[in-house]
């Protein structure tokens, strides 16, 4: 699971609503997997990123060199874009958990794939 994905995921346990975001990320196995740098795609993603959630997740994975916020003129700043590319796309959590901050419900990540299934009782109607 990539950090871009983590940034888009939220808990849907009954009653948590928007407080289900962001999920607390813990990892027991992480892989750095190089991905071809595509600045145009990264530029498109920057406005969609919830920055606080990204920083918290990156911190839980002990990542360094993570930009604290989008900088002025980021569209043309290759260094910034490469750092964001690395954080968003090249760090993969293979084994770990995502925890709902409100209810405590844990969603496992195995073989890089999060399992978000909830039973009927647990979800919103």
């Amino acid at each position: 699971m990539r950090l871009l994905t983590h940034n888009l995921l939220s808990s849907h346990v009954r009653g948590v609503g928007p407080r289900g975001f962001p999920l607390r990320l813990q990892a027991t196995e992480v892989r750095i997997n190089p991905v071809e740098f595509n600045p145009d795609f990264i530029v498109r993603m920057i406005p969609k990123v919830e920055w606080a959630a990204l920083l918290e997740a990156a911190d839980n994975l002990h990542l360094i060199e993570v930009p604290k916020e989008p900088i002025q003129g980021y569209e043309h700043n290759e260094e910034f874009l490469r750092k964001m590319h690395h954080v968003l796309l090249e760090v993969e959590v293979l084994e770990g958990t995502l925890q709902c901050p409100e209810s405590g419900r844990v969603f496992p990540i195995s073989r890089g794939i999060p399992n978000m299934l909830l039973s009927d009782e647990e979800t919103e109607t």
Partner: protein
Amino acid sequence: MAPPGILNRYLLLMAQEHLEFRLPEIKSLLSLFGGQFTSSQETYGKSPFWILSIPSEDIARNLMKRTVCAKSIFELWGHGKCPEELYSSLKNYPVEKMVPFLHSESTYKIKIHTFNKTLTQEEKVKRIDALEFLPFEGKVNLKKPQHIFSILEDYGLDPNHIPENPHNIYFGRWIADGQRELIESYSVKKRHFIGNTSMDAGLSFIMANHGKVKKNDIVFDPFVGTGGLLIASAHFGAYVYGTDIDYNTVHGLGKASRKNQKWRGPDENIRANLRQYGLEKYYLDVLVSDASKPSWRKGTYFDAIITDPPYGIRESTRRTGSQKEIPKGIEKCPESHVPVSLSYHLSDMFFDLLNFSAETLVLGGRLVYWLPVYTPEYTEEMVPWHPCLKLISNCEQKLSSHTSRRLITMEKVKEFENRDQYSHLLSDHFLLYQGHNSFREKYFSGVTKRIAKEEKSSQE
């Protein structure tokens, strides 16, 4: 330079398959590249010859880099219902538009294609020679000409009634071919990881085109299965997400769908499929998730949602249920510990899908999905609707004598506000599609009737 307001005319030679899907594909692609669909022809129907007006050759070339429905495109220089009309039409074509391709330094060749009829070599040469009046000043080069010109003769569509003379004759400069070779190179037969319901390669590319997928888009499939639909979008440069309720399929575990193969190999999962075609860099993630209970945060981040939801025939329709409701004999995924059982009423599933799309698509983004219908009861009003989504096209593919599926394309035209979730419940459309909840029974009713009939006649 053409006077302003005059668009150039092009001839599209269409492939004769998926007939209903062709016009929406061409329209979607033209709109993607800044053109607009305009034509002097009234209907396209079954004919493979379409005359279109396109603002520039660049747009025409971009169209051909995407279409799997069109075989070739030609800059149309003349046409007519008989040779005389063709020649007179050619004489009316502005010479200054011909000269760049016919001047003395150029090389060219002229080909002739006849549709629904075979000509002898002698007949072909005669027709090419008849064009001597055209101001060709260059040299003929049959091997590697700079410019290729084509005569196309249309002898109709009925192989049992081939006319003496063609209905139409066209002459044009060949510009480009379409992407029909993708159908073979991405064939499901060669794919590493398949499922029971993997989509035919041609249709998956048509779906990506109906969805106006473009480079750097994010495309999502909420019923991803083995990822076939994602492959087409990744091929066009989009980054892809998928979810599925089936743990084993998402992880690439369990029984294989290939004949003679018992278990899936280590190389069989969605990511491996993308890797097979050199598209792994477009793989974002897949998740085990229930499409009726999505786990995405509030926001609009999908440029397209392209999917083939289960119809309940070859794959069951399911959603997660409660511990107390498990009927006996239901599968339980060992690692998820969540009972996956309740049959998901088809109409609920489509309305969840539309609501989800209205909420998470960017404005202008498209939803493309298959809707199964029981043909004897189908009416257009049955197609699910949503106040935020505009219906773009509805194309039928027959599945059996009394069932078909329809490829529905919708575009988000209005931002989502919470109360929209409920307004559809007030609509008659919701009630109409309810009848289709028993799609599975209706699908099989034809089969059981036929078997009963056969048994009866074998006893007589």
